[in-house]
C-alpha cells in the first residue's frame, strides 16, 4: 500500500518538541517518507514544494540531535538516493532509440510506438543471443580452434577453390563463407581446444540449448509482467463503453493528421459500440454472407496450400538442380529463399483482399488476418525446414549408398585406377554431405533475402508511393491522398508479425549457424532506422490498430508460439539425425546429444554419472512428470475457485447495493419522523446522539428504525449510513483562516482514508492488488475546504464484524485488522453507510455500543451545499448509498456475517457533550497543537511494540466512554473535557476509562463479549476527533504491514 495518507501531517509535526530520540527518529523517518512519496500526490507544485521544504527543515533540525550513527545512516541513504537518481538519469540516456521512439510516439500514438518498442525488445534478446553464441562458440573457435585450412572440414575443396571468391558464390553463402565460423561445419570436433582445454563441442551443444532456454525464460517473464500490469485480462469485467470513452484518446498524438484519423477512429468506435448495443444482430442476407465467408476461407486455405507446395517444390527442384548441374546460376542458388520471401510478401495482401469478401467486423477480421498470417509464416518456415530435412535424409542415404557401392566395387574390381576414382567421389561426398551447414546456409540466405525484400517494400511501397501521392496529387484527376493510392498505412499487426516471423527464422537456424543472431542484430538495427524513417516521412497510422499494451501480450503470445514451433524442427533434427561424419563439432558421434553423456562419463567423477543415470531413469522422471501434472491441476483448480468466488462476491455486492438502497430510503423516512422530538430524546437517551436536530436517529433509541437491526439481514452486508450532520455553524464560525491549514490537510487525509477504504474494498472484491490511493480532491477543491470546518472532516473508519449467535464480535478497522467489538445485542446489527454527495458517513449505533464514526467527504462543494440544505431541514436531504460496500478482506471471512462500520466521531462527541458547540470551536486552536503531538507519538508507539500500543490506544478511552451511554458517562466527560492535553503515554485516566467503558457496556452485554477499542483521551471533542482520525489514519498506514498491524492496533480488554 502506498503511504499516501501521511503527508499532510507535516504541518503538525513541526510543532513536535520531544527529547526522546526514539520519537525524534520516528518523526524524522516520517518526514522522510513524506519526502519520498511526495511526488505521488496530485498537488500543485507550489504546495509540494512547501511541504517538502517543511519536511526537510524538520529533518535537518532534528537530525543533528540524533546520534552520530543515525546521522551517517541517513546521510548514506541520501547519497544512495542521489546516486540512484543519477544512475537512472544515465540509464535513460543509454536506452537505445528512446528519443526516436518518443518522437514516433508523440506523432502517431502508442500503437505505432508499440511496434518499435517490440522491435527494440527483440533487439535486446538478439543481443544477448549474440553474446551467448559469440562468446562461447565463435570466439573460442577463432582463438583456439584449428585455423582455416588445417583440417578437411575447414578447407575449401579444390574443385570449388576457383569459384570460391566469386561474388555469386559469396552471395549464396558458398565458398569462403561456407567454410567459416558462420556455419556449423567449420567448427572442430576436438574435445578440448586451446591451452585451457575449452570443450568446444560441449559448449556448442549447451549454447544451442541455452539460446532456446533464454528465449523461453525472457518471453515468459515478460508475459507474466505484462499480465500483471494489465489486470484486464484477469477480470472479466466489461467496461467496453467506459474504455471507449475514458481511455479513447491517445494523449501522445501530436500530429494533426494522426489526431484527425484518431478522432475519426474514436467516433467509429463509439458508433460501432452503440450500434452493436442497439441491434445485436444484423440479418442481412445471411446465406450470401456465409457462402462468401466459406469462399474466402477456401481461398485462403488454397493459397496456404499453394504456398506450401511451392516452397516444397522449389526446395526439391534446387536439390535436383544441384545434383544435375555442377554450376548453378545465381537465381538457382537463391531460388528457395527468394520464393519464400516473395510468398511472405505477397500472400498477406492477397489475404487482405480475401478478407474484404468476408465482411467481418474490422476487429474480427483483423484477428482472422493475424491468424492467417501466422499460419502462413509458420507454414512457410515449416515447409522449408521439412523440405530441407527431407533433402538431408536423401543426402545421407545417398552417401550410404555410395559407400556401399564403393565397397562393392572395391571388392569386385581392385583396380587402383577405380580406387582412386572412388576415393575422390567419396571425399567429395564427405564434404558435401554436411547437412547442418546446408540448413544454416538456407536459413541465413532466407534471412538476408527477407531483409532485402523488406527494404525494397519499404522503399517502393511506402516511400515511392508517398512521393507520388504527395507530389502528383495536384496533377491528377482524383484525389490521390484520400482515394486510390493513398499513403501507405503503417500496419502494426502485420509488421509485428513479420518481426515474429523473422525471429522464428533466427531461432530455427541459430543452432546451425551460430552467427545468425549477430546478423539479426544488424538487421534489426537497420530495420529500426528504416522503419522509423518511413513511418515519420510517408506513413499514416493504421486505423484499426491493436492498442499498445493490450497487443503486447498478444504479440508475445504469438512470439512464444513461434519460438515453440521453431524449436521443434531443431530439436527434431538434433534428436533424429545423425550428425555429419566429417564436419562440425559432433562429427563422429552417433547422435548430437551424445556429447552430454560423453562428458558426464569422462569429465565428471563417477558418482555424478551414477546420480545422473538415476535422475534420468524412469523411476525419477515419471513421478516428476506426474507431480508436475498434479501441480498444474491444482493451480488450475485454485484459479477456477478464485474466479468463482470473485463472481460470487460481485453478485453479493450487487444484491446488497440494492438492499442498501431500500434501507436508505427507509432511513430517510425515519429521519423525517424523528427529527421533531430529537432534542428531548437526545438528553434522555443514553445513546450517543448527534448534535443539533438533524441527525440520523440511532436505531436503538428509536424503535422506528428497527429494520436496521433486523436479524434477517445477511451477515456480511455492509452498511453505511451517512448522517448529514449540520455542522455548518461550526464550520463557518470557528477557525480563523490562517490557522486552518493543518486541520485542512488532516481533514483531507481522513477523507482520503475513507476513499482509500472504499478502494480497498473494491479491490478486494475483484482480487486485484489494492490500488494505492492518492489524495483525491485536494487541489481542486482547495477553496471550498477553507470554508469548511476542518476538524469535522476527520474520519474514523472502523469496521465491525458481528457474528450471529456468538458473543464475540470483531471490529475491523480499515478492513484490515480484525477487532473484537462489543455489541450488545445478539442479533447482528446492520450498519448502513449512506453516502450523500458529500459522502458524509455516519453510523447508527444501538445504545451502549461504542460508536466509531467516520465522515467521509468526497467533495466539499457538495458537502457544503448539503449542509446548508440541512440547516433548512433534514427533509431536503438527498441520500445516496455509498459507492462501495465494505467487504471482508479474505475469503475465510466470508462465512462470518460481517459488518463494517464507519462511524462519525465528531458528531458523537458533540452530542455527548451536550454543551454549546461554540465552545468547542474556540478550543479548536489548541486542539490543533495537540494533534501534532499525538501524531508524533503514534509511530513511536508502533515501534515500541504491542504493549505500548495498547496503552496508547487506551488513552483514547474517554471519548469512547462518552460514547457508551453508560451512567458513568457524565463523569468521564467531565474528566476529559477539563484536563489539559498531557501527551504522556500513560495517563492515569486511561485505565479507569477503559474499565468504565467496559463496565458500562457490561451492564447490558453478555459477559463473553469482548472489546477492542480505539479510544481518545483527548479532552476536546473536536480535537479528539482529529486525533482519532489521525489514529485511524496511522492504522491505515500500518495496515500495509500485516505483521505490525496485529500488534499495533488491537486493544483487547476482556470483559
Amino acid at each position, binding site marked *: 500500500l502506498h503511504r499516501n495518507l501521511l503527508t499532510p501531517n507535516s504541518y503538525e509535526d513541526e510543532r513536535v518538541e520531544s527529547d526522546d530520540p526514539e520519537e525524534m527518529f520516528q518523526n524524522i523517518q516520517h518526514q522522510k517518507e513524506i519526502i519520498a512519496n511526495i511526488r505521488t500526490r496530485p498537488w500543485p507544485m507550489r504546495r509540494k514544494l512547501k511541504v517538502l521544504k517543511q519536511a526537510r527543515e524538520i529533518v535537518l533540525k532534528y537530525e543533528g540531535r540524533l546520534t552520530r550513527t543515525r546521522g551517517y545512516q541517513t546521510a548514506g541513504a541520501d547519497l544512495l538516493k542521489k546516486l540512484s537518481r543519477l544512475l537512472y538519469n544515465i540509464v535513460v540516456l543509454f536506452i537505445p532509440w528512446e528519443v526516436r521512439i518518443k518522437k514516433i510516439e508523440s506523432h502517431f500514438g502508442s500503437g505505432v510506438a508499440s511496434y518499435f518498442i517490440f522491435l527494440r525488445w527483440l533487439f535486446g534478446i538478439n543481443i544477448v543471443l549474440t553474446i551467448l553464441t559469440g562468446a562461447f562458440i565463435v570466439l573460442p573457435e577463432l582463438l583456439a580452434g584449428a585455423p582455416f585450412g588445417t583440417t578437411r572440414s575447414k578447407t575449401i575443396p579444390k574443385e570449388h577453390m576457383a569459384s570460391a571468391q566469386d561474388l555469386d558464390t559469396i552471395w549464396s553463402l558458398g565458398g569462403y563463407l561456407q567454410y567459416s565460423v558462420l556455419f556449423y561445419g567449420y567448427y572442430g570436433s576436438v574435445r578440448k581446444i586451446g591451452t585451457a582445454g575449452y570443450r568446444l563441442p560441449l559448449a556448442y551443444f549447451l549454447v544451442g540449448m541455452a539460446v532456446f532456454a533464454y528465449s523461453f525464460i525472457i518471453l515468459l517473464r515478460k508475459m507474466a509482467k505484462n499480465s500483471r500490469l494489465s489486470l484486464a485480462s484477469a477480470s472479466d469485467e466489461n467496461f467496453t463503453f467506459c474504455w471507449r470513452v475514458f481511455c479513447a484518446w491517445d494523449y501522445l498524438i501530436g500530429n494533426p493528421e494522426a489526431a484527425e484519423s484518431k478522432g475519426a477512429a474514436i467516433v467509429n468506435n463509439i458508433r460501432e459500440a452503440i450500434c452493436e448495443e442497439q441491434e445485436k444482430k444484423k440479418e442481412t442476407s445471411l446465406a450470401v454472407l456465409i457462402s462468401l465467408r466459406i469462399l474466402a476461407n477456401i481461398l485462403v486455405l488454397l493459397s496456404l496450400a499453394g504456398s506450401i507446395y511451392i516452397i516444397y517444390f522449389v526446395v526439391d527442384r534446387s536439390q535436383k538442380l544441384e545434383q544435375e548441374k555442377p554450376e548453378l546460376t545465381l537465381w538457382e542458388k537463391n531460388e528457395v529463399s527468394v520464393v519464400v520471401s516473395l510468398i511472405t510478401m505477397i500472400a498477406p495482401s492477397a489475404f487482405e483482399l480475401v478478407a474484404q469478401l468476408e465482411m467481418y467486423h474490422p476487429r474480427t477480421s483483423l484477428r482472422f488476418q493475424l491468424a492467417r498470417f501466422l499460419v502462413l509464416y509458420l507454414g512457410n518456415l515449416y515447409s522449408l525446414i521439412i523440405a530441407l530435412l527431407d533433402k538431408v535424409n536423401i543426402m545421407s542415404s545417398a552417401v550410404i549408398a555410395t559407400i556401399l557401392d564403393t565397397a562393392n566395387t572395391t571388392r569386385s574390381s581392385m583396380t587402383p585406377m577405380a580406387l582412386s576414382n572412388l576415393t575422390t567421389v567419396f571425399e567429395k561426398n564427405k564434404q558435401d554431405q554436411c547437412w547442418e551447414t546446408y540448413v544454416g546456409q538456407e536459413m541465413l540466405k532466407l534471412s538476408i533475402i527477407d531483409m532485402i525484400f523488406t527494404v525494397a517494400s519499404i522503399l517502393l511501397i511506402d516511400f515511392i508511393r508517398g512521393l507520388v501521392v504527395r507530389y502528383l496529387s495536384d496533377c491528377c484527376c482524383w484525389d490521390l491522398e484520400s482515394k486510390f493510392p493513398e499513403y501507405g498505412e503503417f500496419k502494426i499487426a502485420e509488421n509485428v508479425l513479420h518481426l515474429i516471423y523473422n525471429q522464428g527464422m533466427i531461432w530455427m537456424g541459430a543452432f546451425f549457424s551460430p552467427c545468425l543472431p549477430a546478423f539479426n542484430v544488424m538487421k534489426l538495427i537497420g530495420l529500426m532506422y528504416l522503419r522509423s524513417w518511413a513511418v515519420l516521412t510517408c506513413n499514416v497510422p493504421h486505423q484499426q490498430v491493436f492498442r499498445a499494451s493490450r497487443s503486447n501480450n498478444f504479440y508475445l503470445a504469438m512470439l512464444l508460439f513461434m519460438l515453440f514451433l521453431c524449436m521443434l524442427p531443431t530439436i527434431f533434427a538434433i534428436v533424429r539425425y545423425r550428425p555429419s561424419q566429417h564436419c562440425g563439432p559432433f562429427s563422429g558421434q552417433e547422435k548430437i546429444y551424445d556429447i552430454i553423456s560423453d562428458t558426464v562419463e569422462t569429465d565428471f567423477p563417477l558418482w555424478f554419472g551414477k546420480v545422473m543415470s538415476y535422475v534420468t531413469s524412469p523411476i525419477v522422471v515419471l513421478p516428476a512428470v506426474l507431480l508436475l501434472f498434479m501441480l498444474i491441476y491444482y493451480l488450475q483448480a485454485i484459479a477456477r475457485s478464485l474466479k468463482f468466488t470473485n463472481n460470487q462476491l460481485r453478485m453479493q455486492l450487487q444484491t446488497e447495493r440494492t438492499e442498501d438502497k431500500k434501507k436508505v430510503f427507509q432511513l430517510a423516512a425515519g429521519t423525517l419522523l424523528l427529527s421533531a422530538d430529537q432534542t428531548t430524546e437526545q438528553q434522555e437517551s443514553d445513546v450517543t446522539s448527534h448534535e443539533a436536530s438533524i441527525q440520523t436517529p440511532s436505531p436503538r433509541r428509536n424503535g422506528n428504525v428497527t429494520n436496521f437491526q433486523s436479524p434477517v439481514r445477511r451477515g456480511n452486508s455492509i452498511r453505511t449510513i451517512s448522517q448529514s450532520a449540520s455542522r455548518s455553524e461550526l464550520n463557518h464560525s470557528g477557525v480563523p483562516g490562517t490557522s486552518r491549514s493543518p486541520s485542512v490537510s488532516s481533514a483531507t487525509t481522513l477523507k482520503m482514508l475513507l476513499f482509500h477504504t472504499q478502494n480497498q474494498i473494491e479491490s478486494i472484491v475483484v482480487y486485484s492488488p489494492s490500488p494505492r490511493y492518492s489524495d483525491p480532491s485536494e487541489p481542486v477543491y482547495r477553496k471550498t475546504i477553507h470554508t469548511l470546518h476542518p476538524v469535522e472532516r476527520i474520519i474514523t473508519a472502523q469496521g465491525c464484524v458481528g457474528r450471529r449467535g456468538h458473543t464475540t464480535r470483531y471490529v475491523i478497522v480499515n478492513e484490515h485488522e480484525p477487532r473484537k467489538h462489543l455489541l450488545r445485542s445478539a442479533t447482528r446489527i446492520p450498519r448502513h453507510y449512506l453516502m450523500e454527495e458529500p459522502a458524509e458517513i455516519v453510523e447508527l449505533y444501538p445504545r451502549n455500543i461504542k460508536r466509531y464514526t467516520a465522515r467521509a467527504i*468526497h467533495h466539499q462543494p457538495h458537502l457544503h451545499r448539503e449542509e446548508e440544505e440541512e440547516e433548512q431541514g433534514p427533509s431536503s436531504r438527498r441520500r445516496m448509498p455509498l459507492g462501495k460496500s465494505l467487504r471482508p478482506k479474505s475469503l475465510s471471512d466470508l462465512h462470518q456475517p460481517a459488518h463494517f462500520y464507519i462511524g462519525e466521531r465528531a458528531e458523537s462527541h458533540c452530542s455527548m457533550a451536550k454543551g454549546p458547540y461554540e465552545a468547542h470551536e474556540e478550543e479548536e486552536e489548541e486542539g490543533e497543537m495537540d494533534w501534532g503531538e499525538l501524531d508524533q507519538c503514534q509511530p513511536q508507539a508502533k515501534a515500541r511494540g504491542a504493549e505500548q500500543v495498547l496503552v496508547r490506544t487506551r488513552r483514547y478511552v474517554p471519548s469512547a466512554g462518552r460514547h457508551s451511554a453508560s451512567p458513568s458517562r457524565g463523569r468521564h466527560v467531565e474528566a476529559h473535557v477539563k484536563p489539559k492535553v498531557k501527551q504522556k503515554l500513560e495517563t492515569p485516566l486511561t485505565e479507569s476509562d477503559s474499565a468504565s467503558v467496559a463496565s458500562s457496556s457490561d451492564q447490558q452485554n453478555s459477559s463473553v463479549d469482548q472489546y477492542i477499542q480505539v479510544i481518545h483521551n483527548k479532552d476536546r471533542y473536536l480535537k479528539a476527533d482529529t486525533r482519532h482520525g489521525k489514529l485511524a489514519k496511522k492504522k491505515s498506514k500500518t495496515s500495509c504491514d500485516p505483521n505490525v498491524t496485529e500488534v499495533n492496533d488491537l486493544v483487547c480488554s476482556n470483559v
Partner: protein
Amino acid sequence: MGTTASQLGKDLLSEYQELTFLTKQEILLAHKRFSELLTKDEKDVPNVRVPMERILTLPELKSNPFRKRICLVFSTSEHKDGSLTFEDFLDLLSAFSDSATMEIKSHYAFRIFDFDDDGTLDCDDLQQLVNCLTGETEDTRLTQDEMRQLISNILEESDIDKDGTVNLSEFQHVISRSPDFISSFKIVL
C-alpha cells in the same frame, strides 16, 4: 544545456526531480520549451504565467481535444484562466510522464473529464466529454439518441453505487482495469 541548467538552479532542479516523475533531462527540456513560449520581457520575471492560448500552441497539446481542460486543471491561477507557470507546466508533464503512477494519472484524468469541476462525472460531463472526442461537426457528432444510449451504457458499467454519476473511485476502478490507459495517458515533449 548548460545555460538552461544554471537558469533553473541546481537546488530547484533537484527539488523538481524529487517532486515530479521527470528526469533531469526532461525537466531541462521542459524548461527550454517553456522558455520558448515566453515573450522577451517576460523572460526575467520570476513565476511568470503563460496564458492558455500560448500554451496551446505547443504541438503536443495542439491536437488534443482536452487541451483546454488540461490547462485549466493544471493551472494554479486564481482567475481560472488556464494560464500555467513553469511549475504548473512541470506538474502537467509529470502527471503525463511515463513513470507517473496509475493513481496520479487517473486522478488527473478524472479532473480533466470533470468539466464542471464538481467532483463527479455526471451526464453533462459525459456528454461534453463525448463531444470533445467526436468533435463538434455535424457528421461526427452523435445524435441525441446515440448520446443517451452511450451515457446510459457508461453509467451502467461504471456507476457502481447507481447515483447517476461517476465519482472518482468508480472512475479509478474502471480506469485501472483498462489496459490502454497508462500507455496512452502520456504527453512527451
